[in-house]
Protein backbone atom coordinates (compact mmCIF):
# COMPACT_ATOMS: atom_id res chain seq x y z
CA UNK A 1 0.00 0.00 0.00
CA UNK A 2 1.17 3.50 -0.64
CA UNK A 3 -0.20 6.99 -0.16
CA UNK A 4 -1.13 8.94 -3.27
CA UNK A 5 -2.03 12.63 -3.22
CA UNK A 6 -5.40 13.20 -4.89
CA UNK A 7 -6.08 16.89 -4.40
CA UNK A 8 -4.73 19.99 -2.70
CA UNK A 9 -7.73 21.59 -1.06
CA UNK A 10 -6.07 24.51 0.75
CA UNK A 11 -2.87 26.44 0.18
CA UNK A 12 -1.11 28.86 2.51
CA UNK A 13 -3.36 31.79 1.56
CA UNK A 14 -6.56 29.76 1.98
CA UNK A 15 -5.44 28.57 5.41
CA UNK A 16 -4.58 32.12 6.44
CA UNK A 17 -8.00 33.42 5.36
CA UNK A 18 -9.85 30.60 7.10
CA UNK A 19 -7.99 31.20 10.37
CA UNK A 20 -8.62 34.95 10.11
CA UNK A 21 -12.35 34.33 9.66
CA UNK A 22 -12.45 31.90 12.61
CA UNK A 23 -10.66 34.50 14.78
CA UNK A 24 -13.37 37.04 13.96
CA UNK A 25 -16.07 34.47 14.68
CA UNK A 26 -14.56 33.64 18.09
CA UNK A 27 -14.52 37.33 19.01
CA UNK A 28 -18.04 37.90 17.72
CA UNK A 29 -19.62 34.81 19.30
CA UNK A 30 -18.11 35.57 22.71
CA UNK A 31 -18.66 39.35 22.49
CA UNK A 32 -14.97 39.99 22.98
CA UNK A 33 -12.34 37.69 24.45
CA UNK A 34 -12.42 38.61 28.15
CA UNK A 35 -12.71 34.99 29.37
CA UNK A 36 -11.48 33.21 26.26
CA UNK A 37 -8.56 30.78 26.24
CA UNK A 38 -7.37 28.70 23.27
CA UNK A 39 -6.20 25.14 23.78
CA UNK A 40 -4.66 23.28 20.87
CA UNK A 41 -4.78 19.49 20.65
CA UNK A 42 -1.33 18.02 20.01
CA UNK A 43 0.24 18.10 17.64
CA UNK A 44 -1.14 20.28 14.83
CA UNK A 45 -3.80 21.96 16.93
CA UNK A 46 -0.95 23.65 18.82
CA UNK A 47 0.39 25.86 16.01
CA UNK A 48 -3.17 26.57 14.82
CA UNK A 49 -4.16 27.79 18.32
CA UNK A 50 -1.07 30.03 18.40
CA UNK A 51 -2.03 31.55 15.05
CA UNK A 52 -5.60 32.17 16.14
CA UNK A 53 -4.31 33.89 19.28
CA UNK A 54 -2.06 36.14 17.15
CA UNK A 55 -5.01 37.08 14.88
CA UNK A 56 -7.26 37.76 17.87
CA UNK A 57 -4.58 40.03 19.30
CA UNK A 58 -4.54 41.99 16.02
CA UNK A 59 -8.32 42.34 16.12
CA UNK A 60 -8.95 42.98 19.82
CA UNK A 61 -5.56 44.08 21.13
CA UNK A 62 -5.75 41.37 23.78
CA UNK A 63 -3.44 38.39 24.12
CA UNK A 64 -5.57 35.38 25.08
CA UNK A 65 -3.87 32.54 26.94
CA UNK A 66 -2.88 29.54 24.82
CA UNK A 67 -2.42 25.97 26.05
CA UNK A 68 -1.51 22.62 24.60
CA UNK A 69 -3.37 19.38 25.29
CA UNK A 70 -2.04 15.85 24.86
CA UNK A 71 -4.98 13.46 24.76
CA UNK A 72 -3.09 10.16 24.53
CA UNK A 73 -3.97 8.95 28.03
CA UNK A 74 -7.67 9.57 27.31
CA UNK A 75 -7.89 7.64 24.03
CA UNK A 76 -10.58 4.96 23.89
CA UNK A 77 -8.48 2.52 21.86
CA UNK A 78 -5.49 2.07 24.20
CA UNK A 79 -6.36 -1.53 25.06
CA UNK A 80 -6.67 -2.50 21.40
CA UNK A 81 -3.38 -1.12 20.13
CA UNK A 82 -0.42 -3.47 19.80
CA UNK A 83 1.87 -1.10 21.65
CA UNK A 84 1.35 2.02 23.69
CA UNK A 85 1.54 5.36 21.92
CA UNK A 86 4.04 7.95 23.18
CA UNK A 87 2.67 10.41 25.75
CA UNK A 88 3.63 14.06 25.57
CA UNK A 89 3.17 16.92 27.99
CA UNK A 90 -0.06 18.80 28.47
CA UNK A 91 0.90 22.44 28.88
CA UNK A 92 -1.95 24.56 30.18
CA UNK A 93 -0.21 27.14 32.38
CA UNK A 94 -3.44 28.86 33.50
CA UNK A 95 -6.61 27.89 35.37
CA UNK A 96 -9.36 26.95 32.92
CA UNK A 97 -12.11 27.16 35.53
CA UNK A 98 -14.82 29.68 34.54
CA UNK A 99 -13.15 30.39 31.20
CA UNK A 100 -14.51 29.99 27.68
CA UNK A 101 -12.16 27.35 26.32
CA UNK A 102 -11.87 27.08 22.56
CA UNK A 103 -10.43 23.68 21.66
CA UNK A 104 -8.45 23.81 18.44
CA UNK A 105 -7.63 20.87 16.16
CA UNK A 106 -6.66 20.41 12.54
CA UNK A 107 -9.20 17.81 11.34
CA UNK A 108 -12.58 16.77 12.77
CA UNK A 109 -13.38 13.21 11.68
CA UNK A 110 -14.88 10.54 13.97
CA UNK A 111 -15.05 12.91 16.95
CA UNK A 112 -13.16 10.47 19.18
CA UNK A 113 -10.19 12.79 19.64
CA UNK A 114 -12.51 15.58 20.73
CA UNK A 115 -14.29 13.23 23.17
CA UNK A 116 -10.90 12.41 24.69
CA UNK A 117 -9.98 16.10 24.79
CA UNK A 118 -13.20 16.97 26.64
CA UNK A 119 -12.39 14.42 29.35
CA UNK A 120 -8.80 15.64 29.56
CA UNK A 121 -9.95 19.26 29.91
CA UNK A 122 -12.46 18.53 32.62
CA UNK A 123 -9.73 16.86 34.69
CA UNK A 124 -7.91 20.21 34.60
CA UNK A 125 -10.80 22.33 35.84
CA UNK A 126 -14.39 23.39 35.14
CA UNK A 127 -14.64 25.74 32.17
CA UNK A 128 -17.68 28.01 31.77
CA UNK A 129 -18.08 26.47 28.33
CA UNK A 130 -16.05 24.62 25.74
CA UNK A 131 -16.20 25.45 22.04
CA UNK A 132 -14.57 23.62 19.16
CA UNK A 133 -12.62 25.13 16.26
CA UNK A 134 -11.26 22.97 13.44
CA UNK A 135 -9.52 23.80 10.18
CA UNK A 136 -11.20 20.91 8.31
CA UNK A 137 -14.44 19.06 8.99
CA UNK A 138 -14.41 15.91 6.86
CA UNK A 139 -17.59 14.26 8.19
CA UNK A 140 -18.03 10.58 9.23
CA UNK A 141 -18.77 11.33 12.89
CA UNK A 142 -19.04 8.34 15.25
CA UNK A 143 -20.02 10.43 18.28
CA UNK A 144 -22.51 13.28 18.78
CA UNK A 145 -19.91 16.04 18.43
CA UNK A 146 -20.07 19.16 16.29
CA UNK A 147 -17.66 22.02 15.63
CA UNK A 148 -18.52 25.65 16.48
CA UNK A 149 -15.99 27.08 14.02
CA UNK A 150 -14.98 25.35 10.77
CA UNK A 151 -12.32 26.48 8.29
CA UNK A 152 -13.60 24.29 5.47
CA UNK A 153 -16.13 21.49 5.16
CA UNK A 154 -14.70 18.73 2.98
CA UNK A 155 -16.88 15.77 1.97
CA UNK A 156 -14.64 12.69 1.92
CA UNK A 157 -14.90 8.95 1.64
CA UNK A 158 -13.60 6.97 4.58
CA UNK A 159 -10.67 5.47 2.63
CA UNK A 160 -9.32 8.95 1.98
CA UNK A 161 -6.84 10.68 4.30
CA UNK A 162 -6.97 14.40 4.99
CA UNK A 163 -3.50 15.72 5.83
CA UNK A 164 -3.00 19.18 7.27
CA UNK A 165 0.55 20.50 7.11
CA UNK A 166 1.73 23.53 9.08
CA UNK A 167 4.96 25.48 8.68
CA UNK A 168 5.90 25.01 12.34
CA UNK A 169 5.96 21.20 12.07
CA UNK A 170 5.96 20.27 8.39
CA UNK A 171 7.79 23.20 6.79
CA UNK A 172 4.79 24.37 4.74
CA UNK A 173 1.11 25.28 5.02
CA UNK A 174 -1.33 23.17 3.01
CA UNK A 175 -4.20 20.73 3.23
CA UNK A 176 -4.25 17.73 0.88
CA UNK A 177 -6.50 14.75 0.33
CA UNK A 178 -4.60 11.49 -0.04
CA UNK A 179 -5.64 7.91 -0.63
CA UNK A 180 -4.12 4.53 0.17
CA UNK A 181 -3.79 2.48 -3.00
CA UNK A 182 -2.44 -0.97 -3.79
CA UNK A 183 1.12 -0.87 -5.08
CA UNK A 184 0.20 -2.92 -8.16
CA UNK A 185 -1.88 -0.06 -9.54
CA UNK A 186 1.16 2.08 -9.93
CA UNK A 187 3.20 -0.61 -11.69
Amino acid at each position, binding site marked *: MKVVEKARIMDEAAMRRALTRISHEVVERNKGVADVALIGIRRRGGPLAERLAARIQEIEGVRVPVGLLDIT*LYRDDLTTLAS*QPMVRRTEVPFDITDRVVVLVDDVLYTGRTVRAALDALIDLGRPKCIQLAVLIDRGHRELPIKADYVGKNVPTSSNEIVTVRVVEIDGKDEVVIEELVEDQQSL
Partner: protein
Amino acid sequence: MVFENRKDLLGMKGLGADEITAILDVAVPMKDIISRDIKKVPPLRGKVVVTLFYEPSTRTRTSFELAGKYLSADTVNLAVTTSSVQKGESLRDTIKTIEVMGADLIVIRHSMSGVPHYVARNTSMRVINAGDGVNEHPTQALLDMFTIRERKGTLEGLTVAILGDIRHSRVARSNIFGLQQFGCRLRAIGPPTLMPPGLESLGVEVFHSLEDGLEGVDVVNVLRLQRERQQQGLFPTLEEYAARFCLTPERLRPARPDVLVLHPGPMNRGVEISGALADSAVSAINEQVTNGVAVRMALLYLMMGGARDEIAG
Protein backbone atom coordinates in the same frame (compact mmCIF):
# COMPACT_ATOMS: atom_id res chain seq x y z
CA MET B 1 8.07 0.93 21.51
CA VAL B 2 9.89 -0.36 24.56
CA PHE B 3 7.69 -3.24 25.65
CA GLU B 4 6.51 -4.34 22.24
CA ASN B 5 8.78 -7.37 22.34
CA ARG B 6 9.51 -7.44 26.05
CA LYS B 7 7.10 -8.90 28.59
CA ASP B 8 8.90 -7.99 31.80
CA LEU B 9 11.28 -5.50 33.37
CA LEU B 10 13.77 -7.66 35.25
CA GLY B 11 16.89 -5.51 35.10
CA MET B 12 18.71 -2.65 33.44
CA LYS B 13 21.11 -5.13 31.90
CA GLY B 14 20.04 -5.54 28.29
CA LEU B 15 17.99 -2.34 28.13
CA GLY B 16 19.28 -0.09 25.37
CA ALA B 17 19.71 3.69 25.48
CA ASP B 18 16.72 4.12 23.14
CA GLU B 19 14.46 2.05 25.41
CA ILE B 20 15.61 3.88 28.54
CA THR B 21 15.10 7.23 26.82
CA ALA B 22 11.55 6.27 25.81
CA ILE B 23 10.69 5.35 29.41
CA LEU B 24 12.19 8.59 30.76
CA ASP B 25 10.39 10.63 28.07
CA VAL B 26 7.01 9.20 29.07
CA ALA B 27 7.82 9.89 32.74
CA VAL B 28 7.97 13.66 31.99
CA PRO B 29 4.21 14.11 31.31
CA MET B 30 3.48 11.57 34.06
CA LYS B 31 5.27 13.80 36.56
CA ASP B 32 3.00 16.71 35.60
CA ILE B 33 -0.04 14.62 36.57
CA ILE B 34 1.29 14.16 40.12
CA SER B 35 1.19 17.90 40.75
CA ARG B 36 -2.38 18.41 39.49
CA ASP B 37 -5.46 18.83 41.66
CA ILE B 38 -7.01 15.77 40.05
CA LYS B 39 -4.21 13.20 40.13
CA LYS B 40 -5.90 10.62 37.96
CA VAL B 41 -5.89 9.74 34.28
CA PRO B 42 -7.80 6.82 32.75
CA PRO B 43 -5.47 4.66 30.59
CA LEU B 44 -5.22 1.62 32.90
CA ARG B 45 -8.90 1.38 33.82
CA GLY B 46 -9.74 -2.26 34.48
CA LYS B 47 -6.11 -3.35 34.88
CA VAL B 48 -4.87 -4.96 38.07
CA VAL B 49 -1.42 -4.50 39.59
CA VAL B 50 -0.30 -6.66 42.52
CA THR B 51 2.75 -5.86 44.64
CA LEU B 52 4.38 -8.80 46.38
CA PHE B 53 7.23 -7.79 48.69
CA TYR B 54 9.20 -10.42 50.58
CA GLU B 55 11.40 -7.64 51.99
CA PRO B 56 10.32 -4.49 53.82
CA SER B 57 9.85 -1.32 51.81
CA THR B 58 7.91 1.89 52.14
CA ARG B 59 8.84 4.08 49.25
CA THR B 60 9.13 1.53 46.45
CA ARG B 61 5.93 -0.30 47.31
CA THR B 62 3.92 2.86 48.00
CA SER B 63 5.23 4.46 44.87
CA PHE B 64 4.13 1.51 42.70
CA GLU B 65 0.76 1.55 44.39
CA LEU B 66 0.24 5.28 43.79
CA ALA B 67 1.59 5.05 40.24
CA GLY B 68 -1.04 2.41 39.47
CA LYS B 69 -3.81 4.43 41.15
CA TYR B 70 -2.91 7.66 39.33
CA LEU B 71 -3.35 5.71 36.06
CA SER B 72 -6.70 4.23 37.23
CA ALA B 73 -5.42 0.67 37.67
CA ASP B 74 -6.59 -1.31 40.68
CA THR B 75 -3.65 -2.03 42.95
CA VAL B 76 -3.44 -4.70 45.61
CA ASN B 77 -0.60 -5.06 48.09
CA LEU B 78 0.13 -8.53 49.30
CA ALA B 79 1.72 -8.39 52.70
CA VAL B 80 3.83 -11.51 52.99
CA THR B 81 3.65 -11.51 56.80
CA THR B 82 -0.15 -11.91 56.78
CA SER B 83 -0.46 -14.13 53.70
CA SER B 84 -0.44 -17.87 53.07
CA VAL B 85 3.30 -17.61 52.56
CA GLN B 86 3.40 -17.93 56.36
CA LYS B 87 1.57 -21.26 56.05
CA GLY B 88 4.34 -22.56 53.82
CA GLU B 89 2.81 -21.88 50.41
CA SER B 90 5.46 -22.08 47.70
CA LEU B 91 6.36 -19.01 45.67
CA ARG B 92 5.14 -20.71 42.53
CA ASP B 93 1.71 -21.43 44.02
CA THR B 94 1.42 -17.88 45.38
CA ILE B 95 2.16 -16.49 41.92
CA LYS B 96 -0.30 -18.84 40.24
CA THR B 97 -3.00 -17.84 42.72
CA ILE B 98 -2.47 -14.16 41.97
CA GLU B 99 -2.46 -14.88 38.23
CA VAL B 100 -5.76 -16.79 38.21
CA MET B 101 -7.44 -14.04 40.22
CA GLY B 102 -6.92 -11.89 37.13
CA ALA B 103 -3.92 -9.70 37.89
CA ASP B 104 -2.19 -8.25 34.83
CA LEU B 105 1.14 -7.26 36.34
CA ILE B 106 3.05 -8.23 39.43
CA VAL B 107 5.73 -6.16 41.15
CA ILE B 108 8.02 -8.38 43.16
CA ARG B 109 10.82 -7.83 45.66
CA HIS B 110 12.77 -10.71 47.15
CA SER B 111 15.98 -11.11 49.14
CA MET B 112 17.16 -13.80 46.73
CA SER B 113 18.69 -12.79 43.42
CA GLY B 114 16.89 -14.20 40.38
CA VAL B 115 13.45 -14.68 41.95
CA PRO B 116 11.71 -12.21 39.59
CA HIS B 117 13.28 -14.05 36.64
CA TYR B 118 11.93 -17.36 37.94
CA VAL B 119 8.49 -15.81 38.43
CA ALA B 120 8.53 -14.25 34.95
CA ARG B 121 9.18 -17.64 33.35
CA ASN B 122 6.29 -19.20 35.25
CA THR B 123 3.48 -16.73 34.71
CA SER B 124 1.64 -14.98 31.92
CA MET B 125 1.50 -11.83 34.06
CA ARG B 126 3.98 -9.11 33.32
CA VAL B 127 6.66 -8.86 36.00
CA ILE B 128 8.58 -5.87 37.34
CA ASN B 129 11.61 -6.51 39.51
CA ALA B 130 11.41 -4.17 42.52
CA GLY B 131 14.74 -5.44 43.87
CA ASP B 132 16.15 -8.96 43.96
CA GLY B 133 18.94 -9.74 46.42
CA VAL B 134 22.19 -8.13 45.35
CA ASN B 135 21.30 -8.35 41.66
CA GLU B 136 19.21 -5.47 40.34
CA HIS B 137 16.73 -2.74 41.23
CA PRO B 138 15.90 -1.37 37.79
CA THR B 139 13.17 1.11 38.75
CA GLN B 140 15.54 2.80 41.23
CA ALA B 141 18.13 3.20 38.47
CA LEU B 142 15.48 4.62 36.13
CA LEU B 143 14.36 7.19 38.69
CA ASP B 144 17.97 8.12 39.43
CA MET B 145 18.59 8.57 35.73
CA PHE B 146 15.40 10.60 35.34
CA THR B 147 16.51 12.87 38.19
CA ILE B 148 20.00 13.29 36.73
CA ARG B 149 18.61 14.05 33.27
CA GLU B 150 16.13 16.55 34.70
CA ARG B 151 18.80 18.42 36.68
CA LYS B 152 21.67 18.17 34.18
CA GLY B 153 19.69 18.29 30.94
CA THR B 154 21.40 15.16 29.66
CA LEU B 155 22.94 11.86 30.70
CA GLU B 156 25.53 11.76 27.96
CA GLY B 157 29.13 11.73 29.09
CA LEU B 158 28.60 12.60 32.76
CA THR B 159 30.97 11.40 35.47
CA VAL B 160 28.95 9.62 38.15
CA ALA B 161 30.35 8.34 41.45
CA ILE B 162 28.56 5.71 43.50
CA LEU B 163 29.54 5.89 47.15
CA GLY B 164 29.28 3.23 49.84
CA ASP B 165 28.48 -0.48 49.97
CA ILE B 166 28.78 -1.29 46.28
CA ARG B 167 29.22 -4.98 47.02
CA HIS B 168 25.74 -5.59 48.37
CA SER B 169 23.98 -2.97 46.30
CA ARG B 170 21.48 -3.85 43.60
CA VAL B 171 20.98 -0.09 43.18
CA ALA B 172 24.65 0.28 42.23
CA ARG B 173 24.51 -2.55 39.72
CA SER B 174 21.38 -1.27 38.00
CA ASN B 175 22.80 2.26 37.87
CA ILE B 176 26.04 1.02 36.35
CA PHE B 177 24.26 -0.94 33.60
CA GLY B 178 21.90 1.93 32.82
CA LEU B 179 24.37 4.83 32.91
CA GLN B 180 26.92 2.98 30.79
CA GLN B 181 24.39 2.98 27.94
CA PHE B 182 24.84 6.77 27.83
CA GLY B 183 28.60 6.81 27.90
CA CYS B 184 28.84 7.95 31.52
CA ARG B 185 32.17 7.55 33.30
CA LEU B 186 31.50 5.54 36.44
CA ARG B 187 33.35 5.51 39.71
CA ALA B 188 32.84 3.44 42.84
CA ILE B 189 34.01 4.87 46.16
CA GLY B 190 34.18 2.95 49.43
CA PRO B 191 36.31 0.69 51.63
CA PRO B 192 37.86 -2.35 49.90
CA THR B 193 35.71 -4.72 51.99
CA LEU B 194 32.56 -3.25 50.45
CA MET B 195 33.75 -3.48 46.82
CA PRO B 196 32.71 -6.50 44.76
CA PRO B 197 35.44 -8.33 42.87
CA GLY B 198 35.59 -7.63 39.15
CA LEU B 199 34.18 -4.10 39.29
CA GLU B 200 36.98 -2.83 37.04
CA SER B 201 36.04 -5.34 34.37
CA LEU B 202 32.62 -3.64 34.20
CA GLY B 203 34.47 -0.46 33.31
CA VAL B 204 34.09 1.13 36.74
CA GLU B 205 36.99 3.03 38.32
CA VAL B 206 37.45 2.11 41.99
CA PHE B 207 38.51 4.61 44.67
CA HIS B 208 39.04 4.07 48.37
CA SER B 209 39.10 7.71 49.40
CA LEU B 210 36.44 10.40 49.01
CA GLU B 211 38.96 13.06 48.05
CA ASP B 212 40.31 11.18 45.04
CA GLY B 213 37.01 9.66 43.98
CA LEU B 214 35.02 12.89 44.00
CA GLU B 215 37.48 14.91 41.89
CA GLY B 216 35.48 16.54 39.11
CA VAL B 217 32.33 14.40 39.39
CA ASP B 218 28.95 15.61 38.08
CA VAL B 219 26.84 13.32 40.25
CA VAL B 220 27.33 11.40 43.53
CA ASN B 221 24.90 8.61 44.32
CA VAL B 222 25.22 7.85 48.04
CA LEU B 223 24.12 4.34 49.01
CA ARG B 224 22.53 3.39 52.30
CA LEU B 225 24.87 1.57 54.66
CA GLN B 226 23.11 -1.54 55.88
CA ARG B 227 23.85 -1.89 59.57
CA GLU B 228 23.87 -5.69 59.43
CA ARG B 229 27.08 -5.52 57.37
CA GLN B 230 28.87 -4.45 60.54
CA GLN B 231 28.12 -7.83 62.14
CA GLN B 232 29.73 -9.48 59.15
CA GLY B 233 32.93 -7.62 60.00
CA LEU B 234 33.05 -5.61 56.78
CA PHE B 235 33.61 -2.38 58.68
CA PRO B 236 34.48 -1.94 62.38
CA THR B 237 31.84 0.54 63.61
CA LEU B 238 29.38 3.01 62.11
CA GLU B 239 31.46 5.82 63.64
CA GLU B 240 34.58 4.65 61.91
CA TYR B 241 32.79 4.28 58.58
CA ALA B 242 31.34 7.77 58.97
CA ALA B 243 34.75 9.22 59.88
CA ARG B 244 36.09 8.23 56.46
CA PHE B 245 33.10 8.06 54.14
CA CYS B 246 30.23 10.19 55.46
CA LEU B 247 29.54 12.71 52.70
CA THR B 248 29.45 16.30 53.99
CA PRO B 249 29.39 19.69 52.22
CA GLU B 250 33.13 20.12 52.99
CA ARG B 251 34.10 16.74 51.62
CA LEU B 252 32.16 17.41 48.44
CA ARG B 253 34.52 20.25 47.46
CA PRO B 254 36.62 18.32 44.92
CA ALA B 255 33.45 17.64 42.89
CA ARG B 256 32.19 20.01 40.20
CA PRO B 257 30.55 23.17 41.59
CA ASP B 258 27.19 22.09 40.10
CA VAL B 259 27.42 18.56 41.55
CA LEU B 260 24.16 16.70 42.17
CA VAL B 261 23.78 14.40 45.21
CA LEU B 262 21.39 11.44 45.15
CA HIS B 263 20.40 8.90 47.78
CA PRO B 264 17.90 6.07 47.23
CA GLY B 265 16.66 6.24 50.84
CA PRO B 266 16.05 5.47 53.57
CA MET B 267 18.94 7.60 54.84
CA ASN B 268 21.13 7.02 57.87
CA ARG B 269 21.84 10.67 58.58
CA GLY B 270 25.34 11.13 59.93
CA VAL B 271 26.48 7.70 58.72
CA GLU B 272 26.72 7.79 54.92
CA ILE B 273 25.49 11.35 54.43
CA SER B 274 25.34 14.38 56.71
CA GLY B 275 21.95 15.89 57.46
CA ALA B 276 23.20 19.30 56.31
CA LEU B 277 24.10 17.94 52.88
CA ALA B 278 20.93 15.88 52.53
CA ASP B 279 18.84 18.99 53.16
CA SER B 280 20.89 21.31 50.94
CA ALA B 281 20.16 22.49 47.40
CA VAL B 282 22.69 20.15 45.77
CA SER B 283 20.68 17.17 46.99
CA ALA B 284 17.70 15.92 45.00
CA ILE B 285 16.66 13.31 47.54
CA ASN B 286 13.03 14.41 47.91
CA GLU B 287 12.74 15.01 44.19
CA GLN B 288 13.86 11.42 43.65
CA VAL B 289 10.81 10.17 45.52
CA THR B 290 8.41 12.14 43.30
CA ASN B 291 10.34 11.06 40.22
CA GLY B 292 10.06 7.46 41.39
CA VAL B 293 6.29 7.67 41.10
CA ALA B 294 6.55 9.30 37.65
CA VAL B 295 8.96 6.68 36.31
CA ARG B 296 6.79 3.83 37.64
CA MET B 297 3.73 5.42 36.04
CA ALA B 298 5.61 5.46 32.73
CA LEU B 299 6.51 1.79 33.11
CA LEU B 300 3.02 0.66 34.07
CA TYR B 301 1.57 2.62 31.16
CA LEU B 302 4.07 1.30 28.64
CA MET B 303 3.82 -2.30 29.87
CA MET B 304 0.10 -2.64 30.29
CA GLY B 305 -1.71 -1.22 27.35
CA GLY B 306 -2.12 -3.10 24.18
CA ALA B 307 -3.18 -6.56 23.24
CA ARG B 308 -1.57 -8.94 25.69
CA ASP B 309 -1.99 -12.04 23.52
CA GLU B 310 0.57 -10.73 21.09
CA ILE B 311 3.37 -10.83 23.63
CA ALA B 312 5.23 -14.07 23.89
CA GLY B 313 4.63 -15.46 27.36
